[in-house]
């Protein structure tokens, strides 16, 4: 097979940082090439160099594409040559229809007048190609994230794509949607489209990739032939530069007295008031215990957590909550915090952090009374607190005055954790605590969770990654469609058992 793309000795520097250091990448025509690496390793930068977001001249090295030297000055240049990137965050306009989205910037038109007939016809064709049966006029907002991702791919196909780049395409998808997407990639490959996929999920890489390139600290550290077979642990080791055979740190398990007990919890949807989202849920957490809640996205896990945490979600909430055996008032967020609850959100960027502010600002935000006297802030005490949690959690940052928006996902998550630890909680509810962060940082987050349980705190862990729940928890509740459908000690749990509970109930 011929080489479609060769990136030679690519070096890209930002003020003070070498984001890419002489990276070489060869992609053969018609293959699926996976790029793996921790967050901040340089994967996205490399793709931006390739697609002309960083124009020729702002980096060192050469790009050969389709046998010729490529000098892209902007995205348009690379798109003209059939290179299309689909970013992690979807670039669809939710209020417009699928058809309108597919041809944005590429409209079927003559003399500035839309040719709707042609637009709809082509849309139908493309949707069929990606396995969607939606009408072209469907508003994008009305279809699920999984289907939106497929629409993105259809949009790429509308541009006569030759090299399709997918940046963590399945990050927000559920298992079956992910599978559909990966199958589509294989189909496109059969049709001759070359793909580059950036992914954290090694099982997916194994499923689709022909070749894997691992990038670490701005350097391409290894390239593996996936067909020859590889061990996931090998890739993980290359990604983090250390042996990761123990992906979950060891913990001595000791469940103490009952901490939080929730009984008969019912919640209705805030807008669709007739819809009951949480049905009669009861559960408990003991001191020093890590309790998992497994379930698919949309099963109501986040809604359950947020409704308990100061009724921050939902309507007509009913049910009893007891903390250390006595009834506790969780009717508002500040009461829940005072009672000793903390909720670490799954969506740290929009619900957890003030991105434009410093680590210091964010760390003390949920307990400002802890760094103030009579309503007057003590800046030095704040700095001290922020510094303490920076050290304790190993947040990698030049200083606590750094904007959190500039940190990587893993470090942002540590800031959120620090913020909640400072409130001195008894029970922490962690909602997808390792989403979108790299393997090394995940391990550190796991260690922090273990340390918390060793201190006698109760941890409720919500996660879509079943291996994570199996590796970390003492006990697992299985949730489906707003109700708990099973409970088991982690020692007796398996992915198959959990999944079958979800499917059969």
């Amino acid at each position, binding site marked *: 097979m011929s080489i479609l793309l060769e990136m030679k000795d690519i070096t890209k520097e*930002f003020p003070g940082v070498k984001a890419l250091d002489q990276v070489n990448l060869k992609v053969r025509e018609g293959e699926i090439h996976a790029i793996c690496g921790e967050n901040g390793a340089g994967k996205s930068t490399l793709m931006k160099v390739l697609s002309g977001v960083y124009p020729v001249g702002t980096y060192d090295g050469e790009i050969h594409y389709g046998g010729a030297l490529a000098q892209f000055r902007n995205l348009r240049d690379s798109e003209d040559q059939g290179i299309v990137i689909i970013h992690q965050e979807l670039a669809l306009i939710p209020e417009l229809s699928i058809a309108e989205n597919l041809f944005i910037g590429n409209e079927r038109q003559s003399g500035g007048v839309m040719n709707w007939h042609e637009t709809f016809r082509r849309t139908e064709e493309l949707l069929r190609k990606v396995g969607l049966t939606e009408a072209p006029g469907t508003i994008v907002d009305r279809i699920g994230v999984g289907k939106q991702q497929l629409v993105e791919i259809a949009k790429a196909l509308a541009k006569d794509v030759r090299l399709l780049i997918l940046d963590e395409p399945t990050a927000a998808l559920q298992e079956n949607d992910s599978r559909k997407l990966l199958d589509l990639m294989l189909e496109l490959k059969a049709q001759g489209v070359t793909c580059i996929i950036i992914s954290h999920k090694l099982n997916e890489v194994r499923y689709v990739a022909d070749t894997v390139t691992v990038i670490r600290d701005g350097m391409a550290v290894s390239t593996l032939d996936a067909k020859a077979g590889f061990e996931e642990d090998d890739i993980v080791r290359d990604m983090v530069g250390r042996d990761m055979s123990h992906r979950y740190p060891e913990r001595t398990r000791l469940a103490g007295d009952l901490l939080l007990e929730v009984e008969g919890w019912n919640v209705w949807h805030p807008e669709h008031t007739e819809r009951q989202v949480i049905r009669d849920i009861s559960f408990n957490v003991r001191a020093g215990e890590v309790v998992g809640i497994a379930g698919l996205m949309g099963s109501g896990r986040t809604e359950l957590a947020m409704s308990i*945490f100061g009724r921050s979600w939902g309507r007509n909430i009913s049910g009893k909550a007891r903390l250390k055996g006595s009834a506790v008032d969780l009717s508002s*967020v500040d009461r829940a915090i005072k009672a000793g609850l903390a909720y670490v959100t799954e969506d740290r960027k929009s619900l*957890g952090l003030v991105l434009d*502010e410093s680590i210091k*600002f964010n760390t003390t935000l949920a307990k400002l009374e802890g760094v103030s006297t009579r*309503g007057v802030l003590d800046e030095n005490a704040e700095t001290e607190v922020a510094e303490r949690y920076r050290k304790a959690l190993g947040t990698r940052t030049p200083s606590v005055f750094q904007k959190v928006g500039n940190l990587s996902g893993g470090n942002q998550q540590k800031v959120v954790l620090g913020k909640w630890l400072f409130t001195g909680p008894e029970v922490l509810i962690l909602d997808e605590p390792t989403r979108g962060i790299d393997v090394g940082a995940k391990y550190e987050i796991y260690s922090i969770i273990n340390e918390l349980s060793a201190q006698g705190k109760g941890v409720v862990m919500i996660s879509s990654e079943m291996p994570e729940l199996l590796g970390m928890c003492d006990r697992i509740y299985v949730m489906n469609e707003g109700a708990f459908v099973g409970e088991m000690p982690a020692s007796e749990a398996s992915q198959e058992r959990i999944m079958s509970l979800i499917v059969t109930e």
Partner: protein
Amino acid sequence: MTRESKGLKAYLSAHMRDYGLLFALIAIMAFFQIVTEGTLMRPVNITNLFLQNSYIIIMALGMLIVIVAGHIDLSVGSVMGFIGALAAVMIVNYNIPVAVTIPVCLVLGGLIGAAQGYWVAFWRIPSFIATLAGMLVFRGASLWLLEGQSVGPFPQSFQVLSTGFVSDIFPQTLTSPIAEAVGARNFNLLALSVGAVASMVIIWLGLRGRARAKAYGIEGEPSAFFWGRNVIVLGALMFLTFKLSTFRGLPNVLVTMGILIVIYAFITQNTVIGRRVYALGGNEKAAKLSGIKTERLTFFAFVNMGVLAALAGLIFAARLNTATPKAGFGMELDVIAAVFIGGASMSGGSGKIVGAVVGAFIMGVMNNGMSIVGIGIDYQQMIKGLVLLAAVIFDVYNKQKQG
């Protein structure tokens, strides 16, 4: 390049906005000082400058908080005019004592703010719309209250609010030799002393902050910058208070304004409630999930705005010595412009009191300077518009450069 000069350069580029604003004000003042052939800095004109801009600045303090919280208040001009009208009707038409009128007006201002804030905070009506409605309502209300007529004049006891001066506490025997020495008719030593004390407090606070930062190993402002900035600011402060002392001393309004500026700067920067406002504007959902009562905070931002608009209305009416149905028309735009020139962001979460005050002075000096030079109101408007645009472009450019 040495390490130190690299540090200076990095520091400067990171804080371009703060210094840029200050230098812009100085440059504009210098420019008009030259083109007005010294009229700008004459004691009487400096006094005028403060009087003319006091109500804008007072409202800008409240507006900054509203804008930091992620909202806007378009009604302040109308509310200001309405409260001025109310004061005139109460005092002139109904002979209600000034001591009763002032608190009533301030409370009413708060209630007006509450009425608008209620819809914005608890019903999530966009503030642009809720306060646009308020703007129209209170414009009409002023007309109705005054029956289309101007009402005045006010008794002396009300006028002092705006046109009064703080009398000197130092004996004549001490001040007249100074007056003679500087060639003025009289000399208000109190004004100069206040300037001197304020300068010392500023230096002391600055040094204390630096010492603390150093104790925590925080790399703060390079000392060359610290001293350079302080020399300029304090020099300007001493110069202004000196000029004021050769005229009639400290205007009452300046004192009111100065105290309010200090209070609001303290609240926004050093208190829990101030911090919460920034969090609310920076990310409302995250603030809410951190236990902050975001609705209540938004509500009180508008209540506060209403009180300050009422105060501005009283000062404005006292200064003109009459309430006119058109008072405050379009004033909200000057206030909002001052806050944005001062570096606040439309999306909320950022902006400083000092910035808003400097922004208001930039607008004020330009208004005053252009009027002295005799530039028509037509050109004045255009120039002010372009200055606002330039300031915001400068902001965006800086942000992009920092990445």
